[in-house]
């Protein structure tokens, strides 16, 4: 029996009687309702904390301290946001974080793309060693590097400065970028580059003019993840920056959090919302790709 015959025979065998069909449909409908309820519950649990953050940031202080708490604000107010920027140094933290995360992303991508291309296209033994070292660097606990790095930075007289933080963030985020970008280049067809070289491109020209444009989607995803990681980074930022004018958002918010006696929960929630906004924008850009493409490259590559 051919497989086609087998398939139609199987289909005929499972063809249900009319009565069974109604019951079957009823069961399927009930099941779909159950699944929708489950989906709703999942969404509720996952997004409730963020909804709570947003709502609380729009409530006046008395309401945030009130018991029992109210879900929706009785009085809607932007007072918390105004105080956040006038009362605390949040504006400075925000500016520093933009600088650090922006520069780190550009550096990581430029350095990472070049290195990843080399790792993907050239076959030298010393390159393999380097790839292994990069993977190993990814498994080193950041806390282990903290003290020696702090010492190096002090001896370079770069303590309490944004450039030092930028260099370290770039170095710690590089292995991930290398890994994703390399698997991305591995997935590109090499023949087009070879054709370009036959047509008179240098190897470097083939890289810049042929491979690079094809890698743009991978580069965008990697940039977003790098930016997000630099934007969120706490450990090195908290250790290396000291004076309020040099703090980024993570240590800055931690400082405000320790002074909740001075500031209010409403103000802190406003800070949390502002810090989340850029992340939300990036997430909206990347969401589709997140499910369809990037994780495949980054995880199976």
């Amino acid at each position, binding site marked *: 029996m051919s497989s086609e015959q087998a398939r139609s025979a199987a289909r005929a065998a499972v063809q249900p009687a009319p009565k069974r069909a109604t019951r079957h449909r009823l069961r399927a409908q009930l099941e779909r309702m159950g699944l929708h309820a489950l989906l709703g519950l999942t969404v509720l649990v996952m997004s409730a904390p963020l909804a*709570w953050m947003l709502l609380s940031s729009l409530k006046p202080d008395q309401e945030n301290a009130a018991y029992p708490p109210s879900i929706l604000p009785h009085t809607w107010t932007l007072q918390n946001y105004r105080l956040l920027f006038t009362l605390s140094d949040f504006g400075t933290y925000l500016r520093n974080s933009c600088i650090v995360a922006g520069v780190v992303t550009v550096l990581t991508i430029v350095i990472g793309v070049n290195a990843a291309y080399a790792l993907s296209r050239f076959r030298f033994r010393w390159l393999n060693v380097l790839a292994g070292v990069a993977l190993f660097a990814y498994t080193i606990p950041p806390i282990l590097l903290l003290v020696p790095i702090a010492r190096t930075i002090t001896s370079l007289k770069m303590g309490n400065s944004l450039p030092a933080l930028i260099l370290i963030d770039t170095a710690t985020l590089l292995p991930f970028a290398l890994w994703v970008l390399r698997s991305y280049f591995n997935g590109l067809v090499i023949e087009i580059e070879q054709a370009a070289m036959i047509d008179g491109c240098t190897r470097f020209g083939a890289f810049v003019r042929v491979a690079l444009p094809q890698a743009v989607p991978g580069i965008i995803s990697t940039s977003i993840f790098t930016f997000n990681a630099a934007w969120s980074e706490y450990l090195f930022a908290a250790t290396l920056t000291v004076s309020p004018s040099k703090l980024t958002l993570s240590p800055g918010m931690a400082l405000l959090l320790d002074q909740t006696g001075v500031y209010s929960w409403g103000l802190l929630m406003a800070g949390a919302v502002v810090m989340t906004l850029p992340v939300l924008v990036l997430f909206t850009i990347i969401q589709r790709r997140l499910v369809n493409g990037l*994780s495949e490259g980054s995880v199976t590559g």
Partner: protein
Amino acid sequence: MRRPNAKPRYRKGLSDGWLALLLILPAALLLAVFSIYPFLQAAFDSLFRIPLVTRQSTFVGLANYAEVFQDESVRRAFGRSLIWTVSNIVVQTSLGLLIALLLNTRLYGRTLARGLVLFPYMIPAIVVATVFRFTFNDITGIASYLWLKLPGVHEPIYFLSQPNTALVTVTIVNCWKYTPFIVIVLLARLQTVPRDLYEAAQIDGAGRLALLWYVTLPWLLPVLTVALLLRTIWTVNDFDVIYLLAFGGPLDATTTLPLEIRRLAFSHQDLGLASALAVLVALGISVIALAYLWLYRRSEARLHER
């Protein structure tokens, strides 16, 4: 014009070796200065007794390692790290798998639901800590309020300020943030299950559970293994969420190994001892990573056998 049989002549640029070196040099330098050198420095430090203030180091050989193994608080931190890592991985994997399967079903509002469910993964640790310290606040927190509203509950829970609940609370928060990672990875893989695998199994009379067990899960397994490898490394090393949410307390109840390393370095003020523990943790993680890679190869091989 080129003769048809002529060897293609490439335009001369840099030789491949030099080009590769130039392309890789900045990355190599950064990794050397800020990853490899500090690692070696820490390994070197672990052989000395180094009080934080004076920095007068005395060579003690492997004494720090012996001390780490005997230290009672390190042992307890190890126990906590074990509980922390295993419970996080188990919860995130099982919930992640269920949610991925749910989000892969054709349901209304699926696209929006995906976005809302995956978003927490991108939220910075400090924002997570701020929001949940507010939510789990002993006096005004909404979690305490809702808990007391539950039928039959009369005793309040002080989620973050009681030693016996703090680690559980931090684990729940961490799972909220990181389960989406597992979902993302599995969801992408679910969309590539070959149709004919399903059809073949259906012809063999497989029910839905059997399809899940014999087709879907084996197909997910290799990717899941790699995702778990990353999640395990990050969970063992995780510092931000625990520290910002609970500072390792109350009464050290959330002091896992990374926080213990920090305590040894800054409160106990001995860099040598802290480095020894850190080196041991790094080695331990490498062993776990190798185990996962072995599992990965095996699951891949099984998949291709069929």
